């Protein structure tokens, strides 16, 4: 093993997470502007029709083109988990593949760290994929003829490091995802959940700031899926990557999302803070979506409280601003006569009235004025 090469790999490894961790909150890592994708023989011709207001079904019937994405505007913040949710056919997998240009857009703009990705030549694009973005796939997509260790070190192998050079780094991340002793095995010898851990280790070993996760946990059974979600949140607390996560599962979306984007038939129905979407859905589509979930478990105290620093008369104690409503109900034994002081870092930021809590649990109908008008529809 050459010591110089090892030094090199380590300084490179160390530099990047720190810059990622140091990224100030609210900084936009990836900006998507007016993105359109139309599949078919003449996308540009069809684009004019879409811009003139033609819908997805009309376009398919009259022109034989499929509208993949329509007028997508998303800001993906550094160090946060952005979840893109939608049913199958809503264009979410198409959207995530635009970020590293596995699919080329018909029109629009994608900027990563302010740089226009669409202007990249092949070499720059490879650099982006090797060093800035890693990806985790629904069907794992491990190389079946390489060992778990070699799979985990794929990104480094692609950059030209030898096995000896990337071994330590790959082993470190395999260890971190709980596959310490499995480096010498082949992917087919592992269960689905373990294979996806290799997929995550592979993405982490590349040390990219941005991690794209395409339905990464959808192929796993529910218990394993919960494990993997917790693993992701744990890793995220440590590493502060910019994660773009695709899912069709609302519970998963609400659990992981800092920013939630809901797609339907290729356009964004609503995006924002998940709690906010839950309390103020702007579209029947979303109301349908959220009608099945356990609101008490998903809603947090901070979204339901009113801000004040006064102590209420009927105060029954203190709750944390990030507790979910279910835990507060359990604490109050269902008595709606009380209020609670809401604390953040030992400081009161508001008051939660139990009556307001119950009102928040009432299933929502579509709000009158949406946050975003539904285009064309």
């Amino acid at each position, binding site marked *: 093993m050459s010591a110089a090469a090892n030094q090199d790999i380590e300084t490179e490894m160390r530099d990047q997470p720190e810059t990622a961790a140091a990224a100030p909150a609210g900084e936009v890592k990836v900006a998507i502007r007016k993105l359109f994708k139309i599949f078919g023989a003449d996308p540009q011709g069809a684009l004019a029709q879409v811009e003139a207001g033609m819908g997805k079904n009309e376009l398919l019937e009259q022109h034989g083109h499929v509208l993949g994405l329509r007028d997508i505007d998303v800001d993906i913040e550094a160090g946060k988990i952005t979840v893109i949710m939608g049913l199958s056919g809503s264009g979410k997998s198409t959207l995530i593949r635009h970020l590293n240009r596995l699919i080329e857009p018909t029109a629009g703009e994608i900027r990563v760290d302010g740089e226009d990705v669409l202007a990249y030549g092949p070499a720059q694009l490879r650099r*982006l994929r090797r060093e800035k973005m890693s990806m985790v796939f629904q069907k794992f997509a491990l190389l079946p003829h390489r060992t778990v260790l070699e799979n985990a070190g794929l990104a480094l192998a692609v950059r030209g490091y030898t096995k000896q050079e990337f071994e330590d780094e790959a082993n470190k991340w395999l260890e971190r995802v709980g596959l310490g002793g499995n480096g010498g095995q082949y992917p087919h010898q592992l269960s689905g959940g373990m294979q996806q851990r290799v997929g995550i280790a592979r993405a982490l070993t590349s040390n990219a700031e941005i991690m794209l996760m395409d339905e990464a946990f959808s192929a796993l059974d529910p218990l394993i899926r919960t494990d993997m979600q917790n693993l992701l949140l744990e890793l995220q607390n440590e590493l502060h990557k910019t994660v773009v996560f695709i899912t069709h599962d609302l519970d998963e979306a609400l659990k992981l999302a800092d920013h939630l984007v809901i797609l339907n038939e290729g356009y964004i129905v609503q995006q924002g803070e998940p709690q906010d979407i839950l309390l103020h859905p702007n579209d029947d589509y979303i109301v349908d979506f959220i009608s099945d979930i356990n609101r008490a478990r998903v809603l947090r105290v901070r979204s339901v409280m009113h801000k004040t620093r006064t102590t209420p008369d009927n105060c029954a104690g203190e709750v944390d601003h990030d507790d979910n409503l279910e835990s507060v109900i359990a604490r109050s034994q269902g008595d709606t006569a009380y209020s609670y002081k809401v604390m953040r870092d030992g400081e009161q930021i508001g008051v939660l009235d139990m009556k307001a809590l119950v009102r928040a649990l009432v299933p929502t109908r579509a709000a009158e004025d949406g946050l975003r008008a539904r285009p064309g529809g």
Partner: protein
Amino acid sequence: MATYDFVFEALGLERWCASGTSTVPMSMADLMARQSGEVATTTPWNLPFPSLDALNAACPAFPQSRQVTKGLESGFLGIKDSLSIVLDPLTQPLSWMLSGALQTVLNTPWWIVIPLLLLVVQLVSRSWGLVVFVGLSISGLAFIDHYDHAMQTLAIILVCAFLCVLLGVPIGIAMSRSDTIQRMAIPVLDMLQTLPPFVYLIPLIFLFSVTEPKLYGIAIILYAIVPVIRLTNLGIRLVDKDVIEAADAFGMTDHQKLFGVQIPLALPNIMAGVNQTIMMSLAMVVIASLVSAPGLGVLVLRGIRNLELGVGLVAGLGIVLLAVILDRVSKASLARINAAQPQ
């Protein structure tokens, strides 16, 4: 007079018809018809198809069917010399390789060749049972004095199969990477596969001298290269799309993708193609004995020509034995590759 006179009358071409006569010498059938002096009467029942010959009967300036085959022949003979100038030096290494291989197996003592062969079998198959089987088969052939013929056949097959892989795998890779190349190559492959083996020999006999080894070498390669091309193309196209996408997403170059992902994952299919190629070389090497390919095929040919039943049958069984050996050994190495990379 003739059935289709009216066509030329209607077109006003009588003068052109009268101006010329077909230059082809008279055929035997024409001569017989003239001798017998019968005037054929045309009824709707025996109306002749308006073929070249029937039209020629009405208008002597019209070409006869025989001119088609004759034209093809003279056309081929016309380009033959210039074609030879290009093809001769290109294919000369094939002659050297074949005669070199034949010289080597015949001039090396049997007590070196047989252990060497068994060593190769052990290396590619890792199966002692197979080594024993191959050893017994070859010793058996040698015991009845068929050793030289069997080794000649084996040498030709190994050289030709090696060249098939050397040429076929890159062609298959090119086909898998471009739909246009695939569209152009598939009809050619279909033709090579369906053309009866004897037909390969016809143009080759005109192009090269029958004493040159490359004559049968080319015939064997053309016939046997098809499966390795097809299965390389298929194998690479069948590689899991998700894995290819992952390779792209991690920024692999085309070169890294081809040698690091596509070829390793296509290897089981490519090896199945190599197995087929070896078996087809064996089939062709027997037919190629018609054009001086040495080996067991010569004995089969002698059996047919001189009605020597025993000679033909023993040589035929020897070929079966060689086929079984080649098939088992190549399948054993294929199985080892499959075991090394399960999907």
